């Protein structure tokens, strides 16, 4: 979290300076570049976006197949339908039975039509929640894999309550009595992504992106120019490295040159190792501790100026364990 702390201090400094009408931007950017000194990031944010969207990028089921000893896919939300844009089931990985859920894109036009390009509808999120509750009931840890442009923005999706489904998932995941490890493997698009990404640990593949809106959406709405998506990709700070520096994700999983599709085994090995080592760490905690830590994590997100500097104090007062 030191990166986050530094970033935060810099922002506070900036606010203070602007209140006192001091121009310290130049000095600040020098500090920032020194902090970043040891990095050579010659891959642009837009290139990351393109890699994350690569038609051959490995999907949830491909990773599951690669990292598990054996797995069984399970279907349906028990309410309305099975949503092929969201898969789930039970996978034995390193001898441990995990429940998994994840967005599922296709690799060709036909499969993408069936899977709606990984844009899940309410029944997808409700399937994920059903399987999460099963995991909780039987003490299986939960793995989630995020890879979606966003929840499907269509009439059917709205009619059946996509908002309710996403909201309920976040609430229930946040207090699920079993360890949850989430990985953004491709696109982490807005509410559709976070609808299955409330977890104890969140990882990103190196070329994955995670954002409140697509670069195109940002360009169109905020920059009022749909052609500025590449610029927006940078401004939105949506790369794995950005989010790691913000402390929003816990780690970045290296990809081979050019992206995960060039060597899925390489990525899967690191993914598996990350999952197993983090699972072991989480499993060693008592459930109450696990939930307190998760609670602390999610309540802490946000960056704002508080004149009373009482954020910590406030939460501590409300919940002594904070």
């Amino acid at each position, binding site marked *: 979290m030191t990166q986050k702390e530094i970033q935060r201090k810099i922002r*506070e400094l900036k606010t203070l300076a602007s209140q006192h009408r001091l121009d310290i931007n130049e000095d600040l950017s020098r500090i920032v570049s020194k902090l970043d000194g040891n990095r050579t990031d010659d891959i642009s944010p837009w290139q990351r976006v393109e890699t994350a969207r690569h038609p051959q990028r490995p999907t949830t089921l491909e990773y599951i197949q690669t990292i598990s000893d054996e797995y069984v896919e399970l279907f349906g939300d028990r309410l309305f339908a099975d949503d092929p844009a969201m898969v789930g089931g039970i996978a034995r990985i390193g001898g441990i039975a995990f429940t998994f859920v994840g967005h599922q894109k296709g690799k060709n036009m036909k499969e993408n039509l069936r899977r709606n390009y990984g844009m899940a509808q309410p029944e997808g999120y409700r399937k994920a929640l059903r399987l999460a509750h099963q995991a909780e009931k039987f003490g299986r840890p939960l793995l989630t894999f995020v890879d979606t442009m966003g929840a499907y923005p269509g009439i059917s999706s709205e009619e059946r309550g*996509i908002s309710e489904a996403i909201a309920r998932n976040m609430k229930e995941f946040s207090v699920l009595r079993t360890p949850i490890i989430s990985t953004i493997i491709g696109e982490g698009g807005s509410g559709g992504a976070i609808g299955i990404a*409330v977890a104890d640990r969140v990882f990103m593949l190196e070329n994955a992106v*995670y954002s409140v809106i697509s670069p195109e959406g940002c360009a169109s709405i905020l920059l009022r120019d749909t052609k500025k998506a590449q610029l927006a990709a940078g401004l939105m*700070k949506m790369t794995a490295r950005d989010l790691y520096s913000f402390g929003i994700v816990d780690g970045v999983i290296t990809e081979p040159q050019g992206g995960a599709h060039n060597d899925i085994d390489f990525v899967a090995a690191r993914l598996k190792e990350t999952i197993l080592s983090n699972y072991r760490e989480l499993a060693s905690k008592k459930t109450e501790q696990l939930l307190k830590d998760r*609670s602390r994590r999610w309540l802490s997100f*946000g960056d704002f100026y508080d004149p009373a500097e009482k954020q910590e104090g406030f939460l501590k007062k409300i919940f002594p364990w904070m």
Partner: protein
Amino acid sequence: MARPQIETFFRKLLPKGKRNLLYGTVDDRVFLQKEHRCPACSKPVENDKLKDNAFVCYHCNHHFRISAPERLRLLADNGEYQEFSAGLSTLNPLDFPEYEERYAAAREKSGLDEAVKTVVCKMKGREAVVIVMSFQFMGGSMGSVVGEKITRAILLAAQRGLPCVLFTASGGARMQEGIFSLMQMAKTSHAIALLERTGMPLFVVLTDPTTGGVTASFAMLGDVTLAEPEALIGFAGPRVIEGTIKQKLPEGFQRSEFLQQKGFVDRVVDRKAMKDMLAFLIDAHLTVQGAKK
């Protein structure tokens, strides 16, 4: 509990010609004009008469958009409330261009300090934490400040054992705050999970418009969900959906009545009946025999 209304305080700061902006909030297009017409029935409305009617068109029952101070004037007994966490402001976490300028402009134009106001007040004698969003502050968008204030208010209800009432009005995420904005969806939802454990109820009232990340988080997590008539409520905005499906949306789609029919709103309630309804619900959720554990 009593404390001078911030609303009144800000009003005095404004140049005389702009003071009715605070009451007039509503829809800027309407209230920046000298003569006001109801956007629903197009009939002319008198400002004072409209205000006396809770900003509901006395011709056609159209509910004008109102801001937090006005909402609290209608709800809180004697218009009195105690506000919390009012001083929070953005740090522009992404260094997003023009965000700070827009933020300052929104503060000046609306007379509000952020898109949400969190207070404790009494309604017909029932004490509650009341959270009210204001659409005219940057489209009621949720950034770190909005998420934090709502989270704190929900947790305050949990701590004090008070019911919580939440009026939504938002275009969704504050995009300038990027991922920090997205995280507020999970944060506020988690706060509600914590409130649930205390047995205190959350009543959500959806007002026009409520869309995007706000709809897909706390707006849909009430124990009882009410909505003002004909409010636009959805995840994706109508234009986005029309872009997806390449056709016009049906009449009434994503409106309160539609959501009630689709099972996501418990009841559409007129603004003028809202206080009585909330009092009934608070009683029904608190004064009973107590949950059996």
